[in-house]
């Protein structure tokens, strides 16, 4: 079916004038991937639906809204009996005016309420998205640092093996002597017992261990630590992790969990 043919079927369909075979052909084409035809039908349907606006607008009786409300509350069948409107007597004008004013106030109040809620919800969404963007930017910066470090030929890496307390644990440290920075990753560590913490040590050749900070493993057993300003990185020989009292100690005292040279 070409676009002209479909155009004609569309026009007749929006007016409910298609016979059954034509309607089937129309539906078939409408459900095809032809976006132009769907757009054509959508616009014709919209244009046709505007036809009632050309008529002088008339209002139903004020009682209709209440009848609909009652039908909803009573779960009435679709074909509810409509009450033939009585001619309003002179005494109806005052209550009617009050009713119209009340309806106006309620409607405007309701619209304002909904629009305000919509604005509030959208602001909350924007705040959430901003928070998400900031978190993603932080993650991106971390990943960039990691990639740069891992691919830098000047950066040394040390693999750490799990020792007796946690033989399945492992770790990896990237050492950049130029910036005196150590990037450390640990895997497979159980959470430290209460009152204890894991502590990282950098041990230069022939020197005492240097405190490189304390850390906790997350729920997956992983930990990431970036340590800057460490001295003697050019002669660094060993990286190790011990379990120490919370807050850490100046020198290692507890069992060693990870070590690598």
């Amino acid at each position, binding site marked *: 079916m070409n676009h002209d043919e479909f*155009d*004609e079927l*569309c*026009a*007749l369909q*929006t*007016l*409910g*004038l298609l016979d059954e075979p034509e309607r089937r052909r129309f539906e078939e084409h409408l459900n095809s991937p032809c976006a132009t035809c769907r757009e054509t039908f*959508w*616009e*014709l*349907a*919209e*244009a*046709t*639906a*505007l*036809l*009632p*606006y*050309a*008529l*002088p*607008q*008339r*209002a*139903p*009786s004020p009682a*209709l*809204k209440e*009848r*609909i*409300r009652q*039908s*909803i509350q009573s779960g*009435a069948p*679709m*074909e*509810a009996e*409509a009450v*033939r*409107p009585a001619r309003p007597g002179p005494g109806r004008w005052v209550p009617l005016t009050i009713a*119209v004013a009340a*309806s*106006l106030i*309620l*409607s*405007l109040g*309701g*619209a304002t*309420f*909904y*629009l305000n809620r*919509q604005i509030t919800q959208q602001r909350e969404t924007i705040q959430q998205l901003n928070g998400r963007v900031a978190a993603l930017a932080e993650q991106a910066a971390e990943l960039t640092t990691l990639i740069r470090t891992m691919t830098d030929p000047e950066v040394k890496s040390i693999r750490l093996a799990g020792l007796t307390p946690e033989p399945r644990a492992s770790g990896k440290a990237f050492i950049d002597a130029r910036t005196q920075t150590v990037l450390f990753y640990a895997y497979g560590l159980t959470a430290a017992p209460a009152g204890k913490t894991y502590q990282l040590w950098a041990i230069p050749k022939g020197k005492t261990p240097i405190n490189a900070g304390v850390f906790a493993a997350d729920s997956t057993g992983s930990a990431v630590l970036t340590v800057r300003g460490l001295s003697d990185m050019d002669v660094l020989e060993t990286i190790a992790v011990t379990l120490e009292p919370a807050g850490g100690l100046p020198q290692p005292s507890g069992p060693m969990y990870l070590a690598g040279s």
Partner: protein
Amino acid sequence: MQTDLDRYLLQRVQQKDMNAFSLLYERYCRTLYTLALRILSDRTDAETIVHDVFLYLWEHTDTYDEARGSLAVWLVTLTRNRAIDRLRAGASKRDTLGGADPLPEGLEAVTSSQPLESLLEQERQSLVRNALETLPAAQRSALELAYFDGLTQAQIAAQIGEPLGTVKTRIRLGLRKLREVLSPYLRAV
């Protein structure tokens, strides 16, 4: 014509929020009633149609598919289809019972009680009337006979004394022109 407000109100109606339903009623009751009244020429019948359409909206919001058109299109189409069905079903009955409750001559048109809605209604009315006036009288007449009087293509052909093909052409050209003229407006409201 789908507006964010319609979309939001519809979501609330799906959650059975009567206030949202009330606002949708205020937005569309006049247009739907006007359409039903034009087709049926009877206030009681027209109100019954509007009653049923809004009740359907309350109970079957889930059957509305935004991909197939705006809420306004859905409501107008529901109203027109029900009114045309009632017109066809009741035509013979009304003939034998002596007529329905006709609209009194000279009854003034009523606009919305909400100032903004009223302005929008006037704006829409003026746009659509102007658009219809750009059509040749024969095309406009064919559209009105089909849309408001619910006549089939064959009935229109018989009424205006023209071949079926001419009726189809007039309807196609008329609607295409209407769409062109109203095009900037279709997505703007």
